[in-house]
């Protein structure tokens, strides 16, 4: 395309060396205009893989790499550190770092809104086996989001978590997520017996609605119990370690789709030696919880205590603990309370539907609807979309 110019470029610098120079340097080198040089560079950059110069390596290493003609990540991809070291003159340690950086760097291209919407609406949700609750949540506990469940002691927060651990493993052919769960227990309220009871009821239920045989036959009490990975954390640093370890855990168990933290507030409410430490650790935990949700398309379910918020005039209200440091983190906030002898779930923060509530009960088999069909008035809930998704789980899949 640039004929004579190209000849000059070849003489003065190999096309690959062009990548490291900026346009101005090239123009100075070739005595041509900036526009021309920009065009040359654009043409020259057509290779696959990212540029090594954009990987953030120190310039001394870059010079040695370039003088040995390594300019893109593809060039170094399959090399061993010793080979690279021999070729470039870098030390072994530096080569390890170059290789590690080259393999890690990827430039995510921007995604348009339509793609995000399509992907999001295709994601299955974790049903709770209680129709009212599923409708309230817009189909179930959402993936790629953090859901907080708060409430008084004994109202059923741990039961919701246990139910989710079973429901996330429902086979895909019946409309479930078909994933595994990680349970981070801080209070010691995880009971294997309850999980077993819920699993047994779920297996029975799936057996009655059918689905693809190979998929459903693998859904047994044993498989459900094996699919719940359990960590007992005695302090907040252990909680942080478990959350930071999720990516490594995903390498061994790539099918994890639910992370349960029961509860986030237990370790953060007692006397810390330094109050600033506590705030900082809490901020780190909230940040770290977002990672599995977004990167690995997991549902993150977190339980929280209630605390009394005394206002100026002496009146007190019950609010979820940990205040605003934590409050902005969850996407969905569900509050459980009592209305007479019945349990009520109320949505206090949700991007997709207005605040409303649902009755539910806790039975041996897990969360269920209350026997009579009276429900508190719901306002403006999306009635259409959740029904479609719900139908998948209740009927056999004949697509």
């Amino acid at each position: 395309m640039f004929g004579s110019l190209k000849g000059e470029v070849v003489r003065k610098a190999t096309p690959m060396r062009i990548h490291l120079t900026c346009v101005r340097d090239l123009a100075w080198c070739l005595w041509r205009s900036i526009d021309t040089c920009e065009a040359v560079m654009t043409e020259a950059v057509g290779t696959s893989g990212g540029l090594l110069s954009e990987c953030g390596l120190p310039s001394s290493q870059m010079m040695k790499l370039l003088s040995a003609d390594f300019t893109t990540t593809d060039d170094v991809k399959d090399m061993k550190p010793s080979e690279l070291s021999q070729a470039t003159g870098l030390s072994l340690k530096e080569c390890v770092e170059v290789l590690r950086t080259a393999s890690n760097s990827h430039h995510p291209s921007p995604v348009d809104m339509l793609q995000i919407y399509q992907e999001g609406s295709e994601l299955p949700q974790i049903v709770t086996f209680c129709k009212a609750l599923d409708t309230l949540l817009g189909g179930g506990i959402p993936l790629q989001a953090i859901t907080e469940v708060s409430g008084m002691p004994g109202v059923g927060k741990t039961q919701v978590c246990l139910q989710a651990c079973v429901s996330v493993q429902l086979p895909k052919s019946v409309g479930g997520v078909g994933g595994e769960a990680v349970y981070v227990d801080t209070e010691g309220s995880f009971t294997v017996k309850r999980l077993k009871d819920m699993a047994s009821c779920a297996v029975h239920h799936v057996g009655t609605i059918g689905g693809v045989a190979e998929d459903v036959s693998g859904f047994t009490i044993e498989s459900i119990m094996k699919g719940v990975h359990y960590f007992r954390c005695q302090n907040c640093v252990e909680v942080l370690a478990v959350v930071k370890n999720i990516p490594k855990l995903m390498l061994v168990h790539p099918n994890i789709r639910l992370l349960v933290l029961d509860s986030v507030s237990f370790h953060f409410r007692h006397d810390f030696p330094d109050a600033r430490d506590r705030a900082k650790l809490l901020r780190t935990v909230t940040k770290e919880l977002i990672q599995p949700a977004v990167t690995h398309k997991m549902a993150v379910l977190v339980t929280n205590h209630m605390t009394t918020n005394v206002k100026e005039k002496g009146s007190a209200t019950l609010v979820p603990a940990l205040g605003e440091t934590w409050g902005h983190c969850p996407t969905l906030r569900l509050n459980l309370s009592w209305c007479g002898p019945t349990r009520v779930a109320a949505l206090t923060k949700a991007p997709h539907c207005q605040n409303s509530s649902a009755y539910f009960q806790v039975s041996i088999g897990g969360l269920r609807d209350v026997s009579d069909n009276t429900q508190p008035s719901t306002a403006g809930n999306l009635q259409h979309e959740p029904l479609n998704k719900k139908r998948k789980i209740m009927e056999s899949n004949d697509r």
Partner: protein
Amino acid sequence: MMESKGSHKWTKNILNELDINPKIVVCAKKGYVSASSILGASHNELEEKLGLSSFHIKNFIDAVTSHVLPKKTSAWDLSQTGEGDPKHITLGCQNLDNFLGGGVPAQGITEMTGQSGSGKTQIALQLSLCAQLPPVAGGLGKGVAYICTESQFPTARLQQMVKHFKAQHSKGPASYTDGIFVHHIPDMDSLVDCVRYQLPCLLSQRPIGLVVLDSVASPFRAEESNMENKNLLYTLGYQLHQLAATYHIAIVAINQVTSVIGNNNLYGHSGNVVPTLGLTWANLVTTRLMIGRTDSHVQAEQTEGSRQVKKSSSKTIVEYNVRELEVIFCPWLGKKSCPFVVTSKGIEDVE
């Protein structure tokens, strides 16, 4: 040895325990030596402060994470080893044990609350004896630490109960009273200190399976309910949980009730009394049991120990007030109630 576990594990210097490049150790000594500071900082912050490459920082964080990470297990493994099953202490009464799924839960903190005179201390005394039974008989096979905060420990009543208990249960220790360590602690600061320092000492020296707090309410109710005292109460509960998990013991705490006007349905329990100490304490309780008197009575013959009562001899007919044990909340039990009576022998079922 026990001190290295628990909260100190994450504030002490762990650099020398990690399997990492010594260059990282040298740099990290500048200010990132404890697990809490290392994991609490972001990747970028560490890179900036320590001046190491991304690769080294990632290795560093990975090493610390693996060091601190608790044991990974699955629900299946827990069910196979029996670790995941809640433990119980028998009450020596068939009906009550069946109702509670084996006995009083020995996981986390079990609270017994109710009006004065309802029978809470009686149950606590009964538990102190039952806990010393071997595991095959439903006990823990270990001693009891009994912390009294109100009145004197009821020694006479205990002696009376021991006499009957020995006759009924053959497998227990030779001396029940030797296995109960009583402390009298009237105020809240001393109570928290005891739980923080003296109890761990006692637990590491003697085989103790149960800690009874009779009662947790009185030291705190006497003080005003401000933020500082609430924090102290939370610290007490939190430390008790840590002890339970570290030494594998059961904690039974006795609480009082207060009458309430207005919305008293916070815990799904209707009635005109509510446990004291508020939400701060309620959030720390694993199992909440409410004990109360009912309006009904049963009649029974009062027998004296193991002496045979001949048909012709005069028997004393005694009327017992039927009490009720109700489950307010428990992670594995539904809400139900069960009657019992308090006799000279201790706690007994209603036939």
